[in-house]
């Protein structure tokens, strides 16, 4: 059963953070208790998107073993209209913290994996969270691979960019296959407006190219770019196609219908 979802990609700018935040918000609207984690320690961005203030403890502190996980959670439920609960656990954006996280050794990373795995007991079992969503940094970095190993399901965001396609293929083959990880691919920022007519063809092409199931196809919406990552889109625009596609993805994950 999927409880921990990691959102990952080979290259940056594929829409991971936007997808993570809005997928989390979609689950909250469905009545779920959700926590989103910023695992992009080299370029933290969630605090800016969620406009979080007064953060006393960061996710860095939990991984550094200086505080418990409940001390790092920020209740953001008021930002979403829905029956669920929404929490965030943020990466420290201070330059010193980024430098500190960049210089961790293998033993620390091994310990960090243990701390991520321990969230299953602390948050899922004890605090009854329905979903934990890990927003990772792109490529093959320790924090991202730790998140992939700890997750039950990984969403890989990719675009039509040739450099991203090749890298994603290699990453799926040489990383995900080795960890036998349940994976769903999201083709993001698709420019073709006649997407419905081409959907089946695209689905087959993706299955053949990437050898993993397709979770969804997301067209490129100018409205999202115009908002410059300033809002939780599914909250602000409940009738927008982006919101509806994300709701479909959330239902697929909920019902474990990723094929």
């Amino acid at each position, binding site marked *: 059963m999927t409880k921990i979802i990691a959102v990952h990609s080979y290259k940056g700018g594929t829409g991971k953070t936007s997808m993570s935040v809005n997928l989390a918000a979609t689950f909250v609207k469905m009545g779920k208790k959700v926590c989103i984690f910023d695992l992009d320690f080299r370029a933290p961005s969630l605090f800016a998107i969620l406009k979080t203030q007064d953060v006393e403890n960061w996710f860095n502190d939990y991984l550094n073993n200086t505080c418990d996980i409940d001390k790092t959670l920020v209740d953001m439920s008021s930002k979403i209209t829905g029956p669920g609960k929404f929490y965030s656990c943020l990466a420290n954006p201070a330059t010193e913290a980024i430098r500190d996280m960049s210089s961790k050794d293998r*033993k620390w990373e091994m310990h960090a*994996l243990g701390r991520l795995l321990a969230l299953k007991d602390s948050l899922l079992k004890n605090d009854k969270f329905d979903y934990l969503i890990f927003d990772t940094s792109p490529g093959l970095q320790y924090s991202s691979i730790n998140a992939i190993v700890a997750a039950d399901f990984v969403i890989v965001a990719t675009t039509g960019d040739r450099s991203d396609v090749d890298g994603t293929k290699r990453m799926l083959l040489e990383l995900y296959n080795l960890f036998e990880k349940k994976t769903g691919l999201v083709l993001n920022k698709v420019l073709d407006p006649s997407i419905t007519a081409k959907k089946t063809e695209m689905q087959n092409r993706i299955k053949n190219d990437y050898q993993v199931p397709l979770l969804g196809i997301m067209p490129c919406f100018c409205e999202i770019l115009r908002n410059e990552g300033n809002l939780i889109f599914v909250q602000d625009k409940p009738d927008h196609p982006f919101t509806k596609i994300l709701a479909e993805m959330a239902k697929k994950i909920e019902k474990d219908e990723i094929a």
Partner: protein
Amino acid sequence: MIRNDLSSRKPLNILEKIEESLEKLNEKIEVMIEIQKTNGKSNLRAIPTLPDASLDVMTLLSMPDHLRKTAMTICRCTKATAEEIASQTRRARAVESAYLNQLVIMGYLKKERKGRKAYFFIEKETQS
């Protein structure tokens, strides 16, 4: 009366002992088959024992497939017996026991005995 009970139990005890011995024999054969299978894929004897080895994700990636499965499962469980690992990997207990012991030899895991059970775990000191 008591003597009758004892005499009726005797064949039963012998049968239990035979069954136990057969199980042990079966486990040993399974291990031998598995080692034969994996010998072609990797030469574990060639892997040096690292006194301070850490079981991080990059190490997991570089491991042969059969050991990675066991190592990833012990990462999730923190501390477990071969039987508990086998229930998750759906491989034979004896096979997991052999792999876990290999990971101990390679320096990635520690092993401790409690009664008849052997527990495998990642050493705390190496986690800090």
